[in-house]
């Protein structure tokens, strides 16, 4: 009897040890800075929620290389000046095994020299053409803006325009005087010139602008076929409202308006959005139903409740999950944390992620652009839930993801 009891105890201890071994192992630390306060806090917090879902999913499945995954992160307060200190601390003091970027161009670029010096792979989240300057071959950017981000961005919009009959001939380009919107407008200008369109209005406005009616009136006076807007969330709202007030008569209206992807703004603008053709990265259309994305969004929407972030999380969160998936899958595939091997693997592999298949080109951007151009349709007033399902943001471009036909002209 005594022997049986002893054997049972030993077995119990062994079982405990076996079950706990993955967790008892030294964790793999992933370090990053994130904009949790300041101007980009809304997006940064949403990204963090998505990243934590990835961490928990991964740990539930046994971690990476049999080791649990742990995050070490600091708030960069949307201040680029804080980023260098954060990344040196992550690498020198916290001794993280892997790093990923913060959100946005301004917060990614300051980390580059530090990451480059240590020759680390650097998955990055929504930086526009950061690597044009650094030319770092271990940089991998998850936003699907394509190999030439600045011009690829608006290519789809112009291809759509050129497919219409009669072809639009004149264009008005207006953008906020800030980093992303100027780059977007610059790309649009090049595309318009390449296609021989006549640019009848080409101006910028200060980011602090609140009244957009005079701008839209000035655009209306030039009577353009197309109005291409590069704007940030507050001005996107202002611009759409002004276009409705003035009764903008263009045939195509939209472009690179940041903010129209966010559920709260969509609800706020309601039917005013109808007809607008704007960029997006993921919408709940049947053509974009990638494996895992719905499960992820369900978890995200649950976690996001009461946190003041985008309640639907279609825009940034799936990509914040995906850039860690790319890193995690690479670690599992090469079975080590060797940065050279990881980088080589990331260059040659097509990854299966919640945002679909991801393949990086030589400069670390997506090998092929997948900036979607979607058109708002049948949007009802004051209803958030309508945006959770298909039918409100129809994908018009690129062709392989197309989910419906364009309504042209814009105010039909």
């Amino acid at each position: 009897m005594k022997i049986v009891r002893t054997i049972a105890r030993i077995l119990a201890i062994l079982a405990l040890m076996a079950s706990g071994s993955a967790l008892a192992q030294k964790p793999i630390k992933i370090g990053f800075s994130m904009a949790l306060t300041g101007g980009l806090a809304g997006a940064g917090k949403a990204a963090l929620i998505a990243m934590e879902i990835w961490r928990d999913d991964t740990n539930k499945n046994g971690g990476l290389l049999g080791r649990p995954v742990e995050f070490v992160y600091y708030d960069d307060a949307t201040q680029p000046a804080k980023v260098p200190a954060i990344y040196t601390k992550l690498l020198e003091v916290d001794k993280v095994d892997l790093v990923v970027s913060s959100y946005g161009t301004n917060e990614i670029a300051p980390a580059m020299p530090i990451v480059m010096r240590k020759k680390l792979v650097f998955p990055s989240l929504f930086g526009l053409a950061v690597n044009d300057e650094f030319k770092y071959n271990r940089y991998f950017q998850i936003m699907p803006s394509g190999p030439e981000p600045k011009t690829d961005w608006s290519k789809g919009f112009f291809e759509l325009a050129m497919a219409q009959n009669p072809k639009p001939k004149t264009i008005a380009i207006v953008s906020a005087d800030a980093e992303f919107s100027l780059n977007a407008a610059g790309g649009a200008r090049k595309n318009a010139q390449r296609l021989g369109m006549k640019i009848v209005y080409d101006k910028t406005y200060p980011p602090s602008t609140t009244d957009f009616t005079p701008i839209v009136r000035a655009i209306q006076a030039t009577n353009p076929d197309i109005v291409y807007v590069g704007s940030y969330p507050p001005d996107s709202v202002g611009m759409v409202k002004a276009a409705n007030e003035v009764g903008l008569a263009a045939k195509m209206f939209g472009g690179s308006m940041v903010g129209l992807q966010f559920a709260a703004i969509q609800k706020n603008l309601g039917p005013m959005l109808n007809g607008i053709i704007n960029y997006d990265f993921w919408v709940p259309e049947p053509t974009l139903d990638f494996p895992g994305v719905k499960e992820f969004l369900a978890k995200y929407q649950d976690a996001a409740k009461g946190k003041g972030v985008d309640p639907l999380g279609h825009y940034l969160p799936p990509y914040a999950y995906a850039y860690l998936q790319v890193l995690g899958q690479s670690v599992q595939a090469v079975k080590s944390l060797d940065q050279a091997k990881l980088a080589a693997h990331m260059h040659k592999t097509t990854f299966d992620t919640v945002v679909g298949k991801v393949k990086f080109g030589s400069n670390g951007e997506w090998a092929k652009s997948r900036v979607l151009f979607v058109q708002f349709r049948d949007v009802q007033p004051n209803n958030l839930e309508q945006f959770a399902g298909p039918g409100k943001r129809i994908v018009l471009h690129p062709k392989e993801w197309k989910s419906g036909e364009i309504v042209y002209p814009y105010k039909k």
Partner: protein
Amino acid sequence: MKISAFWICIAVIFLGGLAFTEVATNEYYFTALYVILQATIMAIAWNILGGFTGYVNFGSAAFFAVGAYTAIALDKALGLPLPLLIVAAAVVCGLIGLGVGYLTLRLKGVYFAIATLAMAIVLETLVTNWTYVGGARGAYILTPENHLWFDSYIQMLFMLMLVLTLGSVAISRKLNSSRLGRGLAAIRDDEVAAECAGVPTLRLKLISTTVMGAMMGVAGAPYPFFVTFVDPVSAFNLFVAVNAIAMPMIGGTAHWIGPVIGALLVGSMQEIITVNVSSELNVLIVGVMLVLFISLAPQGIVGLVQKHVLRRRR
């Protein structure tokens, strides 16, 4: 004897910094110290006008940003080495400082403060529309390969910043304890009385604003090489201006050592809180400290210590 003690201190700190670059392998310390030293120069500079002369400048971020953008423009145009960029930034910002000095002819007190804030907005708008330096898109500066005999570029930047800080301390001390400093103090106490007593107020104010501007430009010039990406929003950040005011206020504005103490204290605390607690809290703590010091100890830490020493002597 007193002078030599000061210079010995400066030399010891300089040699200590050099030794530190040899001993320490952890680059985090250099990065964190760089940020603290940058804030120290800004605080010292602000104090020359705000503390010694009594003119409150809300536009510190503009001088800092103009310093940074001068460096970017000249680096792009001529590829000058960093020391020359710093000199150029000092000259440009010194001239802007001189211009601000002439503002004091007409504006005093709160009106002067508002004018400096307005100047910052005007300069930001200019830079935002100046496409050569990136305009609103921002500008990238790649970290140069050459870092002399130091192990890394950040070590070199740290040493450079240390030298600039020590230089600023020496200048500020010289201004504070000289005949010129007494003139500035007279302006602070009562400008009209000072003028009547024969203090050349305009000349002194012009010197004060020029030195302040040049020093802030010097603090801003290496910034692009530190962050590698600068856009007008981050360079003209209000937080730079708030820190430049808060640090001398907390340290004590009347004495040259005040801003140094304030900057070292608040700067280190900000770095520690950012990585240990949160960046949000760090801003809150600066705010609370500022309110507490202004209401309970308006003379700052130096004032508290002086009061304590005086009481003991009695």
